[in-house]
């Protein structure tokens, strides 16, 4: 039996009285305050610099008449920006944006949710292929996807689908320059978000609940709708929120696919506000403010919905995974997967390669697509012979790695503080985590420029300012990913370790993180890939030395050099696909396999 021996004051300098008992109490209090508030103070300071200041300055800009450049003239308070926001064009664009976001989110949910369920819980044939199909489209940014699909399905006679119809003698045409076209593209390229955020929870879910339902006579559909889906509700809502906001604030897709059809969306208006001279940054910030208010409301609804229920499915009890038998639906399910793969990966890659190998983009007939005499490598040689390309490639990889590590660590800490600590102000941390979602990345980039250029930390003009920007830009995704995985783990597992004397750090390292491995791996991978693809946040911050690949692609597109844009997109999408293929083992080799 252990004996608790009180410490001897002559041995312990902190308890050795010098001058009286009052001084002994002051030292302990100080240490206690540091222990309780020190880490949180550091976290708050980081979040204030990274998030609060840039968002705050945008808030300020929305209500003033002069761009708040550090050291520049101060503007006067005005509501004119808000009034301009209420004009018919902007309101119409807002409605269109909401429609597109709802449609894109719904389509992405169908694709991504079904793929995740098939991969995690069913006996679909070629399950590794399903896992692959769910995440491989991550390699392709929405910009590149829109570019590729404009080659495939634009209304012009050189689009590949229209050429195909013409070759068949059909008087049909497709037009991707439409609301439906944008919904289609968004649905394809945001499905992986659902897949990644649902795959982990579905894999880690305790199957006993579903087994109990089936034992009681519930059909597979009833089990899915009454048991499975409700248990992954946090992940679904998280993915839904993320996807909706990412789509509504995405500007490359509506710029490429909407503007030619005269379709106004909020992001395309914001882009024009900031790109066309003279820039109207204050009004752009006001639009961002509107989106922020919507976002805060959505988060509030989501959190209230989740907080009323218990979603824990990983406990201290062991469990064996269970695969739902699809029966006659096995092969149709696989066909569904293959269809997604063709639409999201094969066809766009085909289009990028076509555009890369052709001297120019005009095509007279469908057969020309397969005529080797029509191909040459001039554009590949031009791009691969360009020092700018290689510099951008190195920068992109470096940036991706740094953002994944730094961002992943920060997001994990934030998720832990919010979900596992009783630290004061943790709700503040949660809202801060989601705040970057609210501001369109274009506008947020402006906030970064106005804030960090004036900081005493000399990161402006370096790669580190981009790291900081991307850590903030993807804070919602990273935080959401870490939180979703952490929510699946019951607290009693960790509390058991704490009761047995383990420190919080050790508990996190030996209990929590291993159980979260799938989620952590997915989050880091997602951060890396999103960073590689990101365009908007870098537009105001890049320099000649820190140019990244997305900027190179955009510059080529803006200059009308589509072949060079296609070459660059093809090369770096291929590299990203390789990264995704390597990284997917982190996902499929998680808890499910261990228990197998």
């Amino acid at each position: 039996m252990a004996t608790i021996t009180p410490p001897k004051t002559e041995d312990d300098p902190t308890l050795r009285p010098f001058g009286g008992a009052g001084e002994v109490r002051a030292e302990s209090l100080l240490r206690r305050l540091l222990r309780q508030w020190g880490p949180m103070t550091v976290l708050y300071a980081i979040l204030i610099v990274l998030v609060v200041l840039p968002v705050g300055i945008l808030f300020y800009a929305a209500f003033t008449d002069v761009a708040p450049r550090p050291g520049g003239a101060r503007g006067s308070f005005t509501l004119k920006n808000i009034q301009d926001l209420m004009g018919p064009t902007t309101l119409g664009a807002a409605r269109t944006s909401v429609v597109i976001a709802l449609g894109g989110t719904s389509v992405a949910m169908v694709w991504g949710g079904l793929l995740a369920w098939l991969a995690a819980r069913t006996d679909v044939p070629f399950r590794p292929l399903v896992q692959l199909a769910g995440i491989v489209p991550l390699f392709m940014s929405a910009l590149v996807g829109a570019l590729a699909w404009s080659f495939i399905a634009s209304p012009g006679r050189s689009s590949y689908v229209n050429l195909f119809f013409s070759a068949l003698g059909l008087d049909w045409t497709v037009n991707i320059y439409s609301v439906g076209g944008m919904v289609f593209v968004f649905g394809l390229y945001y499905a992986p978000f659902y897949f990644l955020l649902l795959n982990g929870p579905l894999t880690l879910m305790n199957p006993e609940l579903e087994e109990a339902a089936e034992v009681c006579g519930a059909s597979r559909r009833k089990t899915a709708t009454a048991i499975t889906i409700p248990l992954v509700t946090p992940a679904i809502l998280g993915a839904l929120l993320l996807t909706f906001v990412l789509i509504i604030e995405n500007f490359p897709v509506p710029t490429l696919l909407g503007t030619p059809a005269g379709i106004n969306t909020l992001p395309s208006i914001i882009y024009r506000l900031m790109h066309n001279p003279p820039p109207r940054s204050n009004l752009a910030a006001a639009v961002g403010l509107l989106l922020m208010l919507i976002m805060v409301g959505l988060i509030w609804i989501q959190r209230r919905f989740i907080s009323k229920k218990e979603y824990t499915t990983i406990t201290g009890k062991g469990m064996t995974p269970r695969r739902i038998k699809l029966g006659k639906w096995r092969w149709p399910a696989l066909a569904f997967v293959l269809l997604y793969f063709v639409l999201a990966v094969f066809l766009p890659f085909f289009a990028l390669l076509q555009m890369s190998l052709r001297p120019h983009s005009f095509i007279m007939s469908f057969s020309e697509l397969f005529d080797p005499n029509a191909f040459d490598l001039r554009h590949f040689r031009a791009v691969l012979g360009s020092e700018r390309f290689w510099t951008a490639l190195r920068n992109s990889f470096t940036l991706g790695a740094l953002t994944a590590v730094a961002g992943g660590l920060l997001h994990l800490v934030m998720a832990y503080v919010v979900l596992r600590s009783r630290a004061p102000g943790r709700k503040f941390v949660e809202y801060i985590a989601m705040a970057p979602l609210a501001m369109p990345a274009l506008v947020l980039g402006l906030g970064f420029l106005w804030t960090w250029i004036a900081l005493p930390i000399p990161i402006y003009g370096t790669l580190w300012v981009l790291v900081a920007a991307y850590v903030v830009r993807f804070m919602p995704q990273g935080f959401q990913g870490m939180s979703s995985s952490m929510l699946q783990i019951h607290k009693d597992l960790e509390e058991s370790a704490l009761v047995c004397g383990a420190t919080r750090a050790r508990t996190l390292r030996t209990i929590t993180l291993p159980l979260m491995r799938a989620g952590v791996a997915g989050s880091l991978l997602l951060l890396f890939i999103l960073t590689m693809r990101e365009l908007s946040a870098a537009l105001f911050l890049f320099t000649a030395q820190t140019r990244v690949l997305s900027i190179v692609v955009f510059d080529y597109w803006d200059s009308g050099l589509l072949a060079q844009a296609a070459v660059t997109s093809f090369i770096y999408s291929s590299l990203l696909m390789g990264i995704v293929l390597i990284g997917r083992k982190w996902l499929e080799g998680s808890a499910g396999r261990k228990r197998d």
Partner: protein
Amino acid sequence: MNTKKSNRFGAARHTTATLAVLALILAACGGNDADAPAAPAPAPAPAADAGPTAPECGYEVAGDCIADAELWAAAQAEGGLTLYSSVSEARQQVTLAAWAEAGVPLTVELVRLGGGRLYERVQTEHIANQLAADVLLHSDIALVNGHADLGVYEPHCVPNLDLIPDPLKFGDCLFQAGVIVPLLFGWNTALLPSGQAPTSYRSMLDSAELDGGKIAVQHIGVGGSSYAVYFELRKQYGPESWVAMAAKDPVLVGAAGAAQEAVVRGEQVFGPMLTVGNINVSVDDGAPIAGLFPEDISVAIGHWMGLTAQASNPNAAKVFMNWWYSTGGQEAVAFSGDYHPVSGSPSPRVAGYDVAPDVSTLVFPESDPDFIRLRDELFNEWQTVFNFTPGS
């Protein structure tokens, strides 16, 4: 709980190592410095004769001294400069390739941004005393004046300044036109036979062949170039010219490059505001596109060059600017498809033209006081007529 400790982070280490190796491989790779766009051959390069000939000249290119001994020594110590430019990527890379071909051992780092973003960047950086640009090449005279008012520029008298017409230079060597960009008609020759293509804005407005979404054109907010064309069109043919143009239901795009590609791909058949540089690239690639200077209004706009007051490499910047306005720079600009402001400089290379029209035939709306004065009013009118918001 995971008991297989040896595999706990095995996958992570494997992936990290793979990424590290990949990054190292990529870091070892590199291209050469021929950072030019596809197709066009480099500008004529007098590199073989580069170097000082006169005792007082520090560095000479194509017979022109671009730096005295003192300036050259200082420039060499700096090693290079940073250029912020709003000229399109394709055309800018052609001129920079010519600089490289000329053999001047100073690197030029290019940051290319559209007019609005470039303006915001420059203003913010300058106010924060962190302007990274040594040389600015900026479109839209209204924006450039804004920079001048803020003290962004430092005077530097470039060579041949006396040969630059007065409307194309401002202040006492504060800034001057760096390139003059003409805007041409362009059409898809496979879909619109040349005989049917309009040769003037008047015939374009009158042509029923181009009704119903067959025109790809920039909206009025795209830099100063599109506004310049709309301004001149209205000036010459009245407000009804805009109404007539809007009635053709043109497809409004956000960049000259986007309009050009739409024409080449056959989404539309005609573009009235295309740049020579882009047309040259497409024609060199064999695309079915032809360009034409409109007979009635051939509009040109300037991109304005100046030395920045906060330049970190002022001497290298001066050498670059001296080259730009020397024979070598004039030839490079001409090869890229733009006119050079120095009188008597070579005509631009324009596909389909043996000799481009003389610069005196071009119209420069930026020299019209109403160009800036009426800007807001005309923007509002255009929005109403075309029912399109360049920026609400």
